[in-house]
């Protein structure tokens, strides 16, 4: 039996919906099986509690921390936490010096690292390098480290230009004259283990720095800072591309500098490329440690260097996020880490859910009252929307760290209204078409065209809002944007892939097509009056008052009209 086009299209849509649902279930099952996922969405801090981290600034004795620095640190930490997912954490200052970070769940070491490390990035030229072992003191491999290059100086580190020097005061950042005898001595005696104890190893930007490679294998004397992380406009992570353009298996961080940074970086690399030995290298210093000291093979003019090293996908992303949002003005250490209970508690969620369910039952009753059998389509659509939303939230909760807060639950409940509205707009348009005298299946198609336009434009504006808020806002607002975007997309999917196909199919059943009084599509009740072949007269020509007074008369006429309308319908079907 050949099926008509709308019917085939309707079935295809329903199959697509089934595919989406099955894919979501599959995705969830996969995360439950392999990624410690769950079949229920995770809850946010206000409903479930989580972990409270107290961070104390790492300060030298006598050094203070200003409120401004703390506020800045809170802002940066918030961006870093947000970049890890939509978890709606709470970050604030405490007692004028600590920062308290409350995050849902239990953080792992990489989360802690992401939050507290300063991420101060500097590019410095290498002046001297040596094996880190403190027992081997020598000049081997430390070109330019010859003490004779710079004579005895009175003020070694703080004022290099003031150093009395027979050769010259350092003229550029690669000048070996930076290395004063005092610096040389410090370098010779420098033990990389002391870096761990000192926390952040910070030297003023305009002075040389003695430090080690991250794995403590090498130690360096580095020139003054040439370019800082503040000049970074964007940082991303990804697989490094080899010289042939094929991506290697090595993860790296890609940086983009602003104009000033690009110019400075070009200047440095142009200078270094002409130098020999270790002075050809520049060091990338993160939080006072050298994370890489590559050789300068060619001048980098586009301001887009990449950092490679022994990164994993996760650590590369962490570093990229840290660099993107800027360095903390001070480093922090973890003072305490405690479990914290929910601020609102499960009772709020429970009564919220109970109230929401009662509300939904009322919605169902109202739909049935208003739309009779069509109300059943509304209810079925809402159930499908609920299932898809639940699966999506659970999936994103497993994948993106999305967490449901009480405000999110309220947003979902309001979404019931917006989702149901799509059906209401659609049904009302179908009724309008019926009032204009179309047959039921014609009205379904014509009504859909008009209704979908309306649904689409209003949903597009909501999605626009969700995307803008998600990209630009921080903190709780992002969680809201996430929920809004999610429910709006679900609305579109359900109305296009379920409600409309269902109407197409139901419009062919005798119950609906015949305009049964309980179908909600009764042309008689909708006031469409048959007048002749393919011609309908709106009932409005009878004034409301007159119609009321001659109710029985109208009833009789409409019964005939209905019979003819049904006949007309039957003819239409035969002709097809």
């Amino acid at each position, binding site marked *: 039996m050949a099926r008509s086009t709308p019917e085939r299209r309707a079935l295809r849509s329903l199959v697509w919906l089934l595919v989406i649902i099955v894919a979501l279930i599959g995705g969830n099952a996969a995360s439950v099986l392999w990624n410690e996922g769950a079949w229920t969405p995770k809850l946010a801090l206000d409903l479930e509690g989580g972990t409270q981290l107290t961070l104390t600034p790492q300060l030298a004795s006598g050094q203070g921390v200003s409120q401004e620095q703390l506020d800045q640190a809170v802002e940066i930490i918030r961006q870093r936490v947000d970049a890890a997912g939509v978890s709606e954490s709470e970050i604030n200052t405490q007692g004028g010096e600590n920062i308290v970070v409350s995050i849902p769940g239990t953080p792992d070491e990489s989360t802690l690292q992401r939050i507290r490390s300063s991420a101060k990035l500097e590019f410095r030229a290498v002046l001297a390098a040596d094996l880190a072992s403190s027992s081997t003191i020598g000049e081997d491999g430390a070109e330019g480290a010859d003490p004779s290059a710079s004579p005895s100086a009175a003020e070694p580190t703080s004022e290099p230009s003031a150093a009395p020097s027979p050769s010259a005061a350092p003229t550029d950042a690669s000048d070996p004259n930076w290395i004063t005898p005092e610096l040389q001595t410090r370098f010779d005696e420098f033990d990389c283990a002391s870096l761990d104890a000192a926390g952040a190893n910070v030297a003023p930007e305009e002075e040389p720095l003695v430090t080690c490679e991250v794995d403590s294998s090498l130690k360096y004397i580095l020139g003054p800072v040439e370019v800082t992380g503040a000049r970074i406009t964007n940082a991303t992570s990804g697989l490094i591309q080899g010289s042939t353009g094929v991506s290697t298996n090595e993860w790296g961080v890609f940086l983009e500098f602003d104009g000033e940074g690009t110019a400075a970086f070009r200047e440095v690399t142009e200078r270094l490329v002409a130098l020999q030995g270790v002075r050809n290298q520049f060091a990338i210093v993160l939080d006072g440690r050298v994370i890489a000291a590559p050789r300068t093979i060619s001048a980098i003019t586009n301001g887009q260097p990449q950092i490679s090293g022994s990164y994993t996908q996760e650590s590369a992303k962490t570093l990229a996020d840290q660099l993107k949002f800027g360095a903390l003005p001070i480093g922090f250490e973890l003072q305490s880490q405690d479990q914290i209970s929910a601020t609102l508690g499960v009772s709020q969620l429970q009564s919220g859910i109970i109230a929401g369910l009662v509300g939904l039952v009322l919605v169902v009753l109202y739909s049935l009252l208003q739309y009779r059998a069509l109300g059943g389509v509304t209810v079925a659509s809402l159930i499908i929307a609920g299932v898809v939303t639940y699966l999506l939230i659970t999936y994103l909760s497993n994948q993106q760290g999305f967490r449901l807060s009480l405000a999110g639950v309220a947003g979902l409940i309001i979404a019931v209204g917006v989702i149901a509205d799509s059906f209401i707009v659609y049904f009302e348009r179908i009724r309008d078409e019926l009032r204009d005298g179309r047959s039921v299946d014609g009205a379904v198609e014509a009504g859909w065209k008009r209704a979908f336009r309306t649904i689409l434009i209003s949903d597009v504006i909501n999605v626009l809002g969700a995307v803008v808020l998600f990209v630009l*806002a921080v903190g709780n607002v992002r969680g809201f944007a996430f929920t809004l975007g999610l429910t709006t997309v679900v609305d579109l999917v359900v109305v296009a892939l379920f409600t409309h196909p269902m109407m197409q199919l139901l419009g062919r059943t005798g119950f609906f097509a015949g305009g049964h009084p309980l179908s909600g599509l009764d042309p008689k009740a909708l006031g469409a009056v048959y007048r002749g072949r393919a011609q309908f007269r709106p009932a409005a020509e009878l004034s409301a008052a007159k119609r009321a007074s001659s109710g029985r008369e109208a009833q009789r006429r409409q019964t005939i009209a209905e019979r003819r309308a049904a006949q007309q319908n039957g003819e239409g079907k035969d002709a097809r």
Partner: protein
Amino acid sequence: MSRFTSFGNDLYTGARSFDFVGKRRIWYSVAAVLVIIAVGLTALRGGFVFGIEFRGGSEFRVSQVAEASADTAATTDTATAAVGEVVAGSNPRVSVVGGDSVRVQTEQLTPEETAEVSASLAEAFAVDGDQISTSFIGATWGGDITRQAIIALMVFLLLASLVMALYFRTWKMALAAMVALVHDLVITAGVYGVLGFEITPAAVIGFLTILGYSLYDTVVVFDKVRENTGEDGVESRRSFAGSVNLAVNQTLVRSINTSIVAILPVASILIIGAALLGAGTLFDIALALFVGTIVGTYSSIFLAAPLYVHLRENEPEVQKQGGRAKRSAPESGAVR
């Protein structure tokens, strides 16, 4: 079928019509009065009451409370009661930290109050005074969140106006929709200001939800207006205002049904939530949503549509339209 359906039929054909556009002065006045009440009473009360999430406050940490984590709800009640003895009407945030200590956050207290709350907490949890530490805490909803949220909102409203202006092919609809939106937000926020509810992050999320809903509802009504007025030419028998009014009437059943469907769950949260829990975050959000949904639906019909007619009726093309109506159809034309 129900009387409501024939009501819908009459609205569709124009047999029954509410004069939303013609009586716009009344609706403008109502809106103006409501906005003035919202702003005025809020100002009289001394502005909005912001929660500690926005202002920061005082924090008490009661350590070594053995039964703290065994019954979190009881601990919360004890702490709330203890704070309430000193600071009447305070709504502290209580959490159990690390299993055996209680964290109590209140609004910013004076040193005397701090000492009293400390003593009161010590008594309530039967611990020594030196097991309670106090400190000041900063806002969790910092200036940076507000700043970014405002930037994002501005960008969104600009883009939404642009999309609407392109879709409807007139910036006047976008403007009318934005005015209605501001009206809705002012009145919803006014509920908090007038009743003195604390503005919490949850309430702000509630405002944002209303913002989305209000815009959504206006767009749905305007799309019908676009459809109706788009069909009219200069020769149309219906005046522009009449066309818009018919469109609003034709979507009225939709507006009523949608708002009832949206309000039912919110109202049940409001009523059940209030009965089960008393005032709290859930009640606050539900109230904002309840008021916002009603106002959002109302303003699309009574404010946005008349305002749109108002903005356009001086256009020469629009003025010409409906000129024939006076000659050929003295009564309101109902036939499409």
